[in-house]
């Protein structure tokens, strides 16, 4: 399987903002990258499986949360914490080169 990398953001920017949401035309998905208090970086789809609201990182509760209806998701697995739903937020692999973060997508 062939893979390609797509630029997401600069690590310093991410540290300042704590999370960044960006739409990627190439993969038709909107993603969230966030950095938690232990400096762990993760990337998930930021489209809530409920009605499609935007997922943001709630650094106080250390969870991912939907802006529209408040649904909560585990920041390590993308599983829904607040509702018994099968779907979860898709996780994306990434690569850090110098100070830049790229997502890895497979064709």
């Amino acid at each position, binding site marked *: 399987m062939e893979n390609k990398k797509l630029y997401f953001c600069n690590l310093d920017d991410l540290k300042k903002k704590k999370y960044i949401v960006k739409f990627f035309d190439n*993969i*038709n*998905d909107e993603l969230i990258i966030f950095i938690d208090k232990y400096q762990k970086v993760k990337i998930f*789809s930021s*489209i*809530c*499986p*409920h*009605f*499609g*609201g*935007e997922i943001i990182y709630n650094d106080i509760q250390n969870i991912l949360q939907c*802006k*529209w*209806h*408040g649904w909560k998701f585990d920041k390590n697995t993308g599983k829904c914490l607040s*509702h*018994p*739903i099968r*779907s979860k937020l*898709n996780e994306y692999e990434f690569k850090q080169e110098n100070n830049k973060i790229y997502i890895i997508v497979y064709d």
Partner: protein
Amino acid sequence: MTDKKILEITIKKEIDCSKDVAFWNYWDHEHLDIIHSGFAEPHILYEDRNFMYRIDAVKIPFIPFIKISTPMFMVQHDDNTLYTYTVQLGIVSRNKITINEIDKQKSEIIMNYKFLLKYWQLPFKNLLRKLFTKWNERIWNEDYPVKIRRQKILNMNFKDFIGLPMKRSEREFKGENYKLVLPVKRYKNSSRDQHPLSFKKEKK
């Protein structure tokens, strides 16, 4: 002849979303207290396929720490018309919302409000007009990105409670518009259904 006791406000807007997406936004009661700063504790007491009766705790402008219980009745009168009836600050009002399809991804929304004022409120008619217009503008601005985004993700073949298709090649518009089904689905533990007098709660 117009009744002087009635304050009438008509607001027309256009938005890049389908008619059903625009109506969905009105019938999705779970976003109210999260997206809109003026709402708190909305409780649905009864609902069916084309109507709903709800009690909201509405914050008073300028004194937001005081909340007033406000009843709200909504009915989908026909494919293009939704009526809401409410009593806010003792003022009985009805809002007729007409949504016309301009094309599959664009709609015209006409909001026609009528407020029945009491005699002592008549001197404040112009002030009330300004307040309600401002309130409508705020609600519109808070809901606007929701409708736009909802249309965008539905165009990517998004399915409610499931998400986007796993295959990227399937995340594209198939030409079929989203069809709204009422009432909008909620989970059993929804905070909308926790009122002691809620029909759903009593049925459990």
